[in-house]
């Protein structure tokens, strides 16, 4: 862990055109303060990798509305008509990826594997342009790993080493994205002193986290 930042300072670290993984599933487990800071800064041209774009006005949906995103790698945009409209209008380039493939591509990027061999998508539109590999008589799509310049995470609890715990369905993509961002920034509901989180409760080791957001209300 290199330090705790205000949301604005964190947003300033992320240049226009950067690739950014953002945790969350329908805005649950998404780093909402980071997202608001990116909107406030007027970020442009981001490539966002995330499960979904939530709904207009919520979570990643705010980045869509504000026009921050040029390219999107995601599994589902069905509950955000703005994303669909901007995709059809050619304002956002959208790559739709099956959810299980998306999470494995991110994991592969984070753990140094060369790709993912999955049966999902075989014989569908998802197969287009991809290598098919046969292993032990079965066919699989070769899906490439994903990494990003930044991973923006939401956690329930953190300590000042950057160890993270997540709560219930707010885990979702956060633990895998923690491994796949060149710079990892996490915002947590609470930050506790080092030693307070039991080793067995840590879901993301602090060595993966570069920055925490200061607690809400501090330095803002």
């Amino acid at each position: 862990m290199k330090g705790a930042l205000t949301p604005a300072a964190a947003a300033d670290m992320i240049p226009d055109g950067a690739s950014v993984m953002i945790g969350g599933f329908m805005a649950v487990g998404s780093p909402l303060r980071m997202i608001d800071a990116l909107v406030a800064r007027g970020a442009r041209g981001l490539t966002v990798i995330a499960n979904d774009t939530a709904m207009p006005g919520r979570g990643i949906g705010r980045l869509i509305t504000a026009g921050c995103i040029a390219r999107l790698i995601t599994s589902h945009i069905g509950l955000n008509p703005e994303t669909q409209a901007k995709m059809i209008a050619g304002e956002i380039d959208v790559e739709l990826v099956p959810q299980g493939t998306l999470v494995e591509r991110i994991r592969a990027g984070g753990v140094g594997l060369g790709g993912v061999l999955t049966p999902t998508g075989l014989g569908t539109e998802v197969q287009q342009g991809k290598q098919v590999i046969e292993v032990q008589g079965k066919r699989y799509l070769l899906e490439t790993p994903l990494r990003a310049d930044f991973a923006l995470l939401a956690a329930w609890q953190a300590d000042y080493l950057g160890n993270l715990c997540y709560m219930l369905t707010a885990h979702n993509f956060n633990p895998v994205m923690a491994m796949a961002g060149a710079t990892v920034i996490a915002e947590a509901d609470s930050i506790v002193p080092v030693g307070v989180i039991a080793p067995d409760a840590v879901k993301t080791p602090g060595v993966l986290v570069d920055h925490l957001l200061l607690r809400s209300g501090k330095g803002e």
Partner: protein
Amino acid sequence: MDAKELIARRVAREIRPGMLVNLGIGLPSLVAGYVPASLGVFFQAENGVIGLGARPPEGMEDPHLTDAGGGFVTAVPGAASIDSAMSFGLIRGGHLDMTVLGGLQVDAQGRLANWKVPGKMVPGMGGAMDLVTGAARVVVAMQHAARGQSKIVADCDLPLTSLRRVDLVVTDLAVIVPREDGLHLIERAPGVSVADIIAATTAPLIVPDDVPEMILI
């Protein structure tokens, strides 16, 4: 009883004790309401919980506990939180006993299309492709027709979700089992005749001499 309730109650009969079941958003999510707690069934929400419970009482919602549609839920005793990698590991790895999904079309080969209407509606596949590929049993729960058009067709003209043949299709008119030789009509909805079903279906159906009426939970 409306069409959705009919479908949900019929699908609920497919669920066996102790199963791990994933219910899609929308119509499929209604099925949980008709599965007796005594069966010890575990519902998975692919966004991250095994042991999904009912909607919490007003004022007791937790923003960290939602289903795949983003609605507030509870967790049953013995529930487990999982991240997306584990969630889809369970799905793709064959650990999920059943998934119930909505559909746009099912064709004569039993293949499902449910994620895209080119040029019109592109919600994305979300978890559907993994669910259809990996679940031990795939049940499609949908209206038999949309805007007067049969959703059970000779060949899907919408993009496929998977090449895998689904195991069961339950509609407001019929229960159909796709097999290698085609679509077998095995049950009809209360008050619906075999002739009604054939008339409402553009795919060829294999019809046995006796097509009993659905039994509902």
